[in-house]
């Protein structure tokens, strides 16, 4: 046994914090590595030592094997945990770690290599008798007869990157006409993300469940499974809500799938924690998808229902220890659900969002596990994955877990960055979700609300609270007559006015200080009386028509985030004096986010129609298609060139004559 005393986590964000937490609990020192954009991230501060890798992109830092090994050497670490993503499933890295004389917390390089090629993995599983979906590889020369290749599989097919994961490089094709573009796009994306452009086609099941089995194997030949997780709620093939156990599971099926997973793992002599993923169709038939030779993002739900600490198990296995649990010891307790909070805009095609987290606060009185990578003041950049945190609840049953998680999310303060929180809450509270009717087509089929529509009185309260807080700040900051009553008039003719917009609607907010310190108000046409009890820092304790509440407010320029008990309200204050001449392009297409122009499909003078592709840009290693939304129009100007780096909001194409 080789005891680990100083562990380097070759990752970033929440997973680094989570791994370091267990390491600390086990008495192991921690070392973090970081890229420049992460230099103020919480995981850097929490590590016993943090090594700067220098550089901003993933390729220059977390994906650079030599630099990571060098960091381990410089810091005196004796082991490396790769987390998930980045180099976690890179056999070459695992090998380099071992060759450097360090302990690798993960499966053997051989097991990683065997599963890294999805096609080879499938063949291996077929040989071991694990059910699989029909598939075929696409030759890389780009001249293949795609139609012929796809024929035996049948439509629809899924185009997948052989080296892929996380939905990157994945495309669904329902007609042969789309095949060529989908394959080309997937190859481009796969090459960009994994350095390997190989893709394959696979039968696509329309609405399966995604069910995976967690396995644990030690180097003494013990291999157990820790039941299933269901991760069917996905968007863009990325999991956003995961749970354990699966609502579709029966004890018989669990036994069958568990056995299949253990068989699969044994076939490659698997050690450490790993996950065997399956698709489960409506008939209870399951098909092998792939093996993830690493810790999964969603591992906490398994930890919740089994009581295991999977990172602890990984470290113990890496130290050469024997598993101290046997299959028969494990039992499922209650139900756990995890939601992934992303900095992204569900209302705008889930495009990644960036910015500074002005306020991050977990609700104090609701039991939930937060594995978060950010805190108040953190920057969310475009350099890395936009996941902010995972929130996990464990409850006696599924309904309680879902409802509690929704409430926890709703009450979490996340100000300054657009997130998928409302969408997660709407999904968790959706009757179909509560009924356990979860498939990978859930979002498409049920389309949960992407943005919460707060009640009118909630919006009014938020507007009034912000207006009164701003008023209070202005009075406190006044250089003259600071102690005089706010907005005092001996002949009052009107209220003090602030105009906000909320979800595109104007909210006119007026208030007039009264002699007793209260305020008469009129907000969106509703009149009443309010009292500002306290406005300290970002908390506003306000009483409106006798109802008292404390709201937390964050501000960036004219934007306000207001967190109340029933959720968040975002307001934008309109300038007191309207801005003069701002250049406005009547019909134009602006970049929805910062990124790079990959291809341009129109020229000035072109006539375009609705749905026509104008250009493709790449951001966050995903391609975004800019298509014509007008019935018909003419391109008058193309303002960017292929390869240009563009800012969010930058005008790309100008068109005229819309219908």
């Amino acid at each position, binding site marked *: 046994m080789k005891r680990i005393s100083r562990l380097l986590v070759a990752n970033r964000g929440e997973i680094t914090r989570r791994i370091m937490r267990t390491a600390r609990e086990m008495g192991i020192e921690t070392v973090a590595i970081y890229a420049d954009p992460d230099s103020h991230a919480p995981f850097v501060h929490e590590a016993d030592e943090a090594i700067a890798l220098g550089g901003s992109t993933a390729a220059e830092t977390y994906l650079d094997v030599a630099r990571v090994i060098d960091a381990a050497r410089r810091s005196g670490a004796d082991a490396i945990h790769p987390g998930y993503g980045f180099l976690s499933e890179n056999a070459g890295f695992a090998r380099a770690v071992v060759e450097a004389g360090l302990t690798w917390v993960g499966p053997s390089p051989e097991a990683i290599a065997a599963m890294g090629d999805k096609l080879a993995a499938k063949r291996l599983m077929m040989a071991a008798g694990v059910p699989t979906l029909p598939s075929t590889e696409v030759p890389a020369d780009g001249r293949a007869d795609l139609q012929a290749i796809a024929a035996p599989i049948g439509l629809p097919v899924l185009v997948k990157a052989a080296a892929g994961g996380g939905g990157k490089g994945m495309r669904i094709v329902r007609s042969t006409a789309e095949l060529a573009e989908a394959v080309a796009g997937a190859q481009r994306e796969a090459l960009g993300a994994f350095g390997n452009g190989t893709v394959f086609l696979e039968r696509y099941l329309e609405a399966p469940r995604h069910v995976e089995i967690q396995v644990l194997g030690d180097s003494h030949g013990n291999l157990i499974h820790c039941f299933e997780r269901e991760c069917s709620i996905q968007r863009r093939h990325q999991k956003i809500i995961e749970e354990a156990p699966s609502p579709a599971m029966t004890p018989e099926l669990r036994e069958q799938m568990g056995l299949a997973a253990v068989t699969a793992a044994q076939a490659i002599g698997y050690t450490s924690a790993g996950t065997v993923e399956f698709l489960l169709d409506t008939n209870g038939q399951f098909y092998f998808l792939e093996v993830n030779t690493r810790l999964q993002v969603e591992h906490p739900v398994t930890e919740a229902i089994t009581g295991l600490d999977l990172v602890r198990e990984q470290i113990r296995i890496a130290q050469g220890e024997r598993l101290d649990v046997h299959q028969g010891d494990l039992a499922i307790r209650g139900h756990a659900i995890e939601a992934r909070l992303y900095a992204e805009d569900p209302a705008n095609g889930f495009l990644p969002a960036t910015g500074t987290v002005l306020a991050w606060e977990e609700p104090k009185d609701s039991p939930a596990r937060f594995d978060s990578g950010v805190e108040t003041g953190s920057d969310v950049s475009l350099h890395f994955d936009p996941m902010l945190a995972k929130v996990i609840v464990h409850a006696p049953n599924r309904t309680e877990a879902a409802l509690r998680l929704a409430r926890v999310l709703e009450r979490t303060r996340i100000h300054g960055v657009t997130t998928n929180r409302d969408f997660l809450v709407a999904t968790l509270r959706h009757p179909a979700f509560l009924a356990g009717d979860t498939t990978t087509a859930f979002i498409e089929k049920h389309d949960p609300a992407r943005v919460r529509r707060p009640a009118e009185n909630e919006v009014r309260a938020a507007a009034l609270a912000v207006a009164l807080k701003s008023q209070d700040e202005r009075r406190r900051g006044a250089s003259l*007559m600071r102690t005089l009553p706010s907005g005092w008039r001996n002949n009052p003719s009107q209220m003090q006015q602030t105009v906000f917009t909320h979800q595109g609607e104007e909210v006119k907010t007026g208030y007039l200080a009264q002699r007793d310190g209260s305020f008469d108000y009129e907000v969106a046409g509703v009149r009443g009386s309010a009292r500002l009890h306290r406005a300290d820092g970002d908390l506003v304790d306000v009483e409106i028509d006798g109802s008292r509440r404390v709201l937390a407010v964050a501000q960036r320029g004219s934007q306000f985030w207001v967190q109340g008990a029933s959720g968040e309200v975002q307001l934008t204050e309109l300038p007191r004096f309207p801005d003069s001449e701002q250049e406005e392009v009547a019909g134009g297409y602006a970049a929805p986010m910062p990124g790079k122009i990959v291809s341009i499909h129109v020229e000035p003078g072109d006539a375009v129609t609705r749905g026509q592709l104008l250009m493709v840009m790449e951001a966050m290693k995903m391609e975004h298609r800019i298509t014509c939304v007008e019935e018909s129009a003419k391109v008058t100007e193309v303002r960017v060139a292929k390869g240009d780096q563009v800012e969010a909001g930058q005008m790309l194409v100008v068109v005229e004559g819309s219908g």
Partner: protein
Amino acid sequence: MEVLRSRLDTRSEGYQSNRVAMLEKLAYIETQLELARAGGGERAIARLRSRGKMLIRERIEMLLDRDTPFLELSPLAGWGSEFNVGGGLTMGVGTISGVECMIQGNDPTVAGGAMTTYAAKKIMRALEVARQNRLPYVQMVESAGADLRRSTDSAEAEMARQTTHFAESGRFFYDITELSAMRTPTMSIVFGSSTAGGAYQPGMSDYNIFIRGKSKVFLGGPPLVKMATGEESNDEDLGGGELHATKSGLADYLVDDELAAIRKARQVIAHYNWRKLGPGPTMPPDPPLYDAEELLGVASPDLRVPFDIREVIARIVDGSRFEEFKPLYGTTLVTGWASIHGYPVGIIGNNGVLFSDSSEKATQFIQLCNQVDVPIIFLQNITGYMVGRIYEEGGIVKNGAKMINAVSNSNVPHITIIVGASYGAGNYGMSGRAYNTRFVFCWPIAKIAVMGPQQLAGVMSIVRRGQAAGAGVPFDEEEDAKIRAAVEDRSEKESLALFATGRVADDGIIDPRDTRTVLGLTLSAVHNNEVRGTTGYGVYRM
């Protein structure tokens, strides 16, 4: 510092009835303020709005820094006259881009903003406030010109006709440029017409902001030009914003609409590099220990009922702290030190009629305030200087004159609040309107006159009786009673605070509960100028 202890019994009948009476008066005043705000009425307002224009008070509200206080001066000018309450012009002291300014503007809903005699008087007052306190001056001009309407033939109108002459008017152009010469910037925002004589309003200003298509400034309009030279023209050719911004140079800034004009004014003022010459507040500004609400019941509307002025002081000064000076001497006058919203002040308040000793005490205290550059707050409730043989013998004229000498030559700012009576020379000695006091405000129950109505009627009756006796004719008692009643009635009416405020003889009637706020705001305003006591007085008659 000592803290005042109130002896006011808020459960007493007197307090309660005082309070009811005060609230009644305030309710009436509110109806008059409402009239002032309503300007020229609904139709005129609708017409103004239909032209994309804002009301005068809306213009002022936009001009002011958000949530800052604004004190409107003489809102009830013209009360009791045939003119609109407010006189068609709004003015006050407020903060623009962090600078306290004297702001005035025509109310274009009232006869097109035509300049009434009350508006003219208010402008003169606005300029005086700006000059005395060194407040940058902003005028918002939109006026149809002079109000050429003749007053009806009341005795008053007749007197006005006999005592005013065109050659005496127009002084305000002089005042505007004088202000500029005193290094206090002046600005005109021209919202509409400002023609003929009115053209000199922007003409004399340091900064002019014009609105495209709305501002009109010319000496002679199209009809006059046609008559004078035969030239055909229109308003825009003669005096539009475009012409003045590009050709004549009268406009410094040309903007597209009213909001843009106001924003421009705020930007220009932000660049005034304004530094107040007086110090900022230096004392703890904590609120009084006693509720301002109780000021409603302190004073009786029957001014013969005395009350302790310390009850007022306890409710307006910081922490109710008051360091009384000479508390055992001349006890009908209360003098002492306090602070209001952090500004140190000397306070002189009446607790009865002025005697020789109280006059001397006032004289000494005024000199002390001047010695250390402390502004003085006068709280007037004065029926006058004591009369009678032994008082004359004791030199009441001489000692009253000392007090008036000291008040007149005092150079620290005075702010006067008339909380009750203000009769005769008492008004002068306690720094009344004519004594260069920076601001004068009245409580609703205040009365200002040469003497009490009954005394006046009685005095006149005695004179008539003497005349009858001298002429040897019988005295008509019945006729005398009638005359006495009429004189008393008229005198009572004319002594009301509303009468004074209607004639712009004060700066406005204030709600007693606002006294501290009004003092805080005006104290801050007066500190824009240097606060320095005098070193010389007139020769004191000893």
